[in-house]
C-alpha cells in the first residue's frame, strides 16, 4: 500500500456508517470533568454565569408554561410557550381537567397568532415569606419583617416552594381576556438529581456571557472560566527554553502579543491590555488556557499510563494497602492541621492560617470518604464472607519516584512538610499512581460502579494537590514561627490524659467503621453514622485533637493493638 493512496472503504451496513460518524474513542483517561460531576459542580449563578444561568430554571416554574420574567408596569412575566403535548398527556392520565386544558389550549392558540399573554398576579407559598398574593405594583412598596414581600418578580418566583400550589392570573393583552390557572410549582431536578426532562438542551446556558466579546475588558468580577483567566503562564515553545520566566504568569489580555522576549509578568497594577475594539478585532489572539498555561496548539492530554495488576489477588492487596494509605495520610494531615495556632496569630496572618486549617480539615474528611470508597470496592469484589474491612494503617506511603516509599510520619505543617503533601497528592505519581493501576485493572475486569468510584478518588486527589499548593502559598507568606504552635512540635508524653481521650475515640471510630463496612448498607448505616459523630464536634476526635493541640502537643494516633487495625506494609 502506498502512503499516498487515499483509502476509501464504502460502508455497507448501518454499523459501518456508525463507526464512520464517530470519532475514535479515547483508549486512555483524558483530563476533564470527573465522572462525579453534577450540575451543582458547575459555576452557576443567578446572573449570566459561566456554566449555567440559574435564572433559566424559573422559566419553567409553572407546569406546562414557559415564561420570560420581565416586569412591566402591569405584569410580572410574559408567557412565551405552552407545552401542549404535556398538557395532553396530563389530560389522558386524568391529572388535568378539561377546563384547565382548554385554558392552555387558548393561550397556545393565541401565541401561535402572535397575541401576547402575561402573568399579572401570582399567588402561592413564597418559602419563609409564607403565603402571599402578588402583583407587580406590590414590589415598589416598602416591606419589612415577617411576611414581607419579595423584592421583585424573579425573586418571588424563585422563592416559590417546590410542589406547593401556585395560582396565576394570566391576561391576554389585546383583546383583553383573563384566565386563572393553578398548578404545583414544578420540580427542576428529577429523582436522580439530573435536570428535569422539560428543559431543552442549551436552555440553561442560553443567557451566558459571550466569552469573545469585550466583556473580558470590563468585567471586574475576576471569576472567568479557567480557560479565560486574568493571568496565565505564557505559551510553551518547543523545545522549552531554559528560562525560569517561562513559568511566571503574565496578563492574558496583554496588548503586546509577542512571545520574544517573554511577556512581562502580570502585576496588580494595570498593564497595557487589549482595548475593546482590539478584542473584537483580534479575538483569535487570546489563547486558550489549559492547566494554567496558554496553548497555541491542539491540546494533547497526558497519556494514562497505569498498568493493570495481573491477578484479582494482587488487586485486592493493593486496594487494602490503598485504604491503609488513606488512613496514614489522614494521620499526617490531622497532625499538620492541629499544629497550626488557633489563637494568638499576628495581624495579617489570621485569615491565611484559618483558610489553611479549613482546607486541611476538608481534605481530611475527603480522605475518610476515600477510605469508605476503597472498602466499598473491596466489599463489592466479594472475596470473603463476611467481608473483612480494610482499616490497617499504612506504615509507609508511596514516594514520588516509582517504587519508592517513605515512612508515615505525622509532623507539624512546616513548609517542608507541606511540600511533601503536595508530592503525595501529585497527579499520576505517588498515591495517584497507585490508584491509576487499580483503575486500569478495574477498567479491564471491574464494574462501572467500581471504576467510577476509583475515578472519583483520583479526581479528588487532583483537587487536593491544587489545594495544598494554595495552602503552601497562603502559609508561605508568613513566618512558620508565627503560625505553628512550634516547628518541632512533639507528641504528648505517655499517659497524657488528653492524648488518651483522643486514642480512645480513635479506637472507637475504627470499631464503628469496621462494623459498618462489614455489614454494608443499609444494615451498617447506624455504625457509619456513629463513626461520623465520633469524628467531628467537641465530643469527637476533632474536640479531643484540639485539646491536645491546646496543651501544646502534636496530634498523633498510637498503633492499635488489634490485628484488624495493625500497620500494613506496602506490597
Amino acid at each position: 500500500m502506498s502512503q499516498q493512496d487515499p483509502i476509501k472503504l464504502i460502508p455497507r451496513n448501518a454499523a459501518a456508517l456508525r463507526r464512520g460518524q464517530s470519532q475514535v474513542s479515547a483508549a486512555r483517561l483524558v483530563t476533564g470533568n470527573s465522572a462525579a460531576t453534577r450540575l451543582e459542580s458547575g459555576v452557576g449563578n443567578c446572573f449570566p454565569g459561566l456554566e449555567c444561568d440559574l435564572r433559566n430554571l424559573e422559566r419553567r416554574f409553572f407546569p406546562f408554561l414557559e415564561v420570560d420574567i420581565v416586569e412591566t408596569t402591569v405584569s410580572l412575566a410574559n408567557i412565551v410557550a405552552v407545552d401542549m403535548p404535556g398538557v395532553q398527556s396530563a389530560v389522558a392520565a386524568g391529572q388535568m381537567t378539561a377546563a384547565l386544558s382548554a385554558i392552555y389550549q387558548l393561550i397556545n392558540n393565541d401565541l401561535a397568532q402572535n397575541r401576547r399573554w402575561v402573568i399579572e398576579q401570582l399567588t402561592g407559598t413564597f418559602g419563609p415569606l409564607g403565603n402571599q398574593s402578588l402583583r407587580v405594583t406590590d414590589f415598589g412598596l416598602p416591606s419589612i419583617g415577617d411576611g414581607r414581600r419579595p423584592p421583585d418578580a424573579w425573586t418571588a418566583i424563585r422563592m416559590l416552594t417546590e410542589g406547593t400550589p401556585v395560582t396565576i392570573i394570566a391576561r391576554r393583552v389585546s383583546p383583553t381576556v383573563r384566565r386563572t390557572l393553578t398548578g404545583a410549582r414544578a420540580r427542576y431536578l428529577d429523582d436522580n438529581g439530573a435536570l428535569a426532562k422539560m428543559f431543552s438542551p442549551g436552555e440553561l446556558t442560553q443567557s451566558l456571557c459571550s466569552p469573545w466579546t469585550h466583556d473580558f475588558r470590563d468585567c471586574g468580577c475576576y471569576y472567568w472560566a479557567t480557560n479565560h483567566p486574568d493571568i496565565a503562564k505564557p505559551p510553551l515553545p518547543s523545545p522549552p527554553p531554559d528560562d525560569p520566566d517561562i513559568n511566571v504568569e503574565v496578563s492574558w489580555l496583554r496588548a503586546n502579543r509577542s512571545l520574544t522576549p517573554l511577556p512581562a509578568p502580570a502585576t496588580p497594577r494595570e498593564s497595557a491590555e487589549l482595548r475593546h475594539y482590539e478584542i473584537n478585532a483580534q479575538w483569535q489572539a487570546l489563547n486558550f488556557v489549559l492547566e494554567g498555561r496558554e496553548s497555541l496548539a491542539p491540546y494533547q492530554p497526558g497519556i494514562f499510563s497505569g498498568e493493570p495488576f495481573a491477578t484479582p489477588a494482587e488487586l485486592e492487596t493493593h486496594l487494602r494497602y490503598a485504604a491503609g494509605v488513606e488512613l496514614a495520610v489522614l494521620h499526617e494531615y490531622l497532625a499538620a492541621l492541629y499544629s497550626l495556632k488557633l489563637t494568638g496569630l499576628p495581624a495579617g496572618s489570621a485569615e491565611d492560617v484559618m483558610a489553611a486549617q479549613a482546607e486541611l480539615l476538608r481534605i481530611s474528611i475527603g480522605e475518610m470518604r476515600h477510605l469508605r470508597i476503597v472498602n466499598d470496592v473491596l466489599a463489592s469484589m466479594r472475596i470473603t464472607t463476611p467481608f473483612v474491612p480494610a482499616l490497617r494503617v499504612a506504615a509507609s506511603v508511596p514516594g514520588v519516584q516509582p517504587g519508592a516509599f517513605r515512612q508515615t510520619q505525622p509532623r507539624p505543617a512546616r513548609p517542608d512538610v507541606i511540600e511533601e503533601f503536595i508530592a503525595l497528592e501529585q497527579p499520576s505519581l505517588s498515591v495517584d499512581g497507585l490508584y491509576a493501576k487499580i483503575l486500569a485493572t478495574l477498567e479491564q475486569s471491574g464494574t462501572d460502579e467500581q471504576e467510577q468510584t476509583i475515578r472519583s478518588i483520583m479526581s479528588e486527589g487532583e483537587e487536593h494537590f491544587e489545594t495544598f499548593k494554595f495552602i503552601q502559598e497562603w502559609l508561605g507568606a508568613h513566618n512558620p514561627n508565627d503560625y505553628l504552635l512550634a516547628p518541632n512540635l512533639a507528641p504528648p508524653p505517655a499517659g497524657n490524659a488528653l492524648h488518651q481521650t483522643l486514642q480512645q475515640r480513635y479506637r472507637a471510630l475504627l470499631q464503628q467503621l469496621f462494623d459498618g463496612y462489614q455489614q454494608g448498607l443499609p444494615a451498617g448505616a447506624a455504625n457509619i453514622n456513629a463513626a461520623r459523630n465520633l469524628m467531628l464536634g467537641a465530643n469527637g476526635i476533632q474536640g479531643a485533637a484540639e485539646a491536645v493541640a491546646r496543651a501544646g502537643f502534636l496530634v498523633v494516633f498510637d498503633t492499635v493493638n488489634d490485628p484488624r487495625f495493625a500497620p500494613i506494609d506496602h506490597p
Partner: protein
Amino acid sequence: MLTIGKLPAAPTAPLFKRFASAIGEHLLIAPHSRLFDLPPDFAAALDRQEEEPLQLVAALAQAASGEEALEKVVAPNPQSLSLNVSSSCNLACAYCYAGQGAFKGAQPSPMSWEVARAAIDRLFATADAQAPLTVGFLGGEPFVNRALIHRATHYAAEAGAARGLDVRFAVTTNGTLLNKNDIELLRAYRFAVTVSVDGGVELHDAQRPLAGGQAGSFARLCAALGPLLADPGLALVAARATVNRRDFNLRQRFAAILAAGFPEVGFAPLRAAGPDAGALHDEDWPRYLAALTELAEDERARALQGANIRLTNFAVALKQLYRGASSPYPCGAGGGYFSVAANGDWYACHRAIGAPAYRLGDNHGLDEMRRRDFLTSRHVHAQTACQTCWARYLCSGGCHQEATQRTESACGFVRGWLEFCLRAYCELSAHRPEFFSADQYLGGQQ
C-alpha cells in the same frame, strides 16, 4: 444498563472476515459487525496481512459512539418474560425439550393466576418504560391453560397501560387447540404467534403425533388456525419447523407450510434431544446447510424481483447484518429475558425449567450474584471454542442449552450459513437498497 463485569476478548481472536460477492470485495469487522466494500488493492493488501490495513481494521473494530463495548457483562432490567402456563400437551413430539410441559417432573402442575400476576407485576415494577415489554406464554401447550392466558393478557394490557408501558405478547403453540375466543384474543392484542409446524400433513403428523400416538395433528392445526391466518388482526403469525436428520427436503416442507396459509416459515435444526428423536449428527450439517441455502437462494431471487422474503432465518439474518447486530450473547437469557416456571421460579431460559444452574430468582426478586455468575459464564468471551471464530458476535456461541452439543461441524454450518447471508446481503443491498430502509428493518425485535 448496569455493567457488572468485563471479559476482554482473547488477544488472538480474529478481528475480521474477508469475503467476496458478485458486486466485489468486502470486509466484515467482527466486533460490532461492520460491513465495508473494499477497493481491490486494499483487499489484496489486507489478504497479505500488511500492517497499514490491519491497523485500520483495528481502529474500525473500536466501539462507536452509543455502542456498548462487547467485553462488558451487563445486567439489564428484565424486559421480557415467558410464563410456562401449562404443564401438559395434547401432542407427543419425540424431541420436545419440555417433556410435554412437565420438564421431567420439575413442573408437575399448571401455573396459577396468583403466580402469573405476581410475575407480571414484578416485570412491570423494574422494566424500562421507554422500551417495549413482552409477556409470552409457553408450556407444554399453553392453550391447555387458556383461561390463564386470557386473564393474564387482559391484566397485563390494562396494568401496562396504566403505567404507560408498551406491552406486547407472544405465544408458542401447536395451534391445534385454538378456539374462537382464543383467536379473538390473539387478534385484539399485539401477539407474536409462533406455531410449531414441521411440514406437510405426512411429515408433520409423523413428527408431531397426538398424545395417544395417532396421526391427525396437521388437520387439526389447519382447522383451528385457519381463521387466524385468514384474518390475523394485530397478531403476527409465523411457522417454526423443527428439522431432524431424517428429512432435509426443506423446499418441500417450506412449500407445504406456505400452502397451509402461513406468511413466513423458519427452520430450527434439532441439536439436542433424546436418543431416537433424530438430532443432527456431524455428517448431517453440510446436508442441512445445502438444503437451507438452496431455499434461501430461491428467496433471494424473489427478493431481487421485488417480492418479500418468506424464510424467517434468511430475513432475520439480513436484517441483523443491515443493522450490524453484534452481541456477546445469543439471546436475552438471564439478561433482558426470563422464563417463569409454574411455581413462580425465574429461570434464565424456558428450556431450562428445573435446571438449578439456570434458576436465578423468583417472583420476589432476582439473585444478582447468581445472575452475574450466569451472565459471566455465558458471555461469548468465556467460550473457548469461540475465541478463534470470526462469527462470534453474530452467533454468540449459539443456544446455551445446545452449547454442550456444539461440534466443529455444527459451527461449520453456522459459518457457512453466515457467509451465504453476507454475500446475499451485499448483493441485495446494492441492487435493492430500498429493501433495507423499510421500517421493519430498523425497529422491532431482532
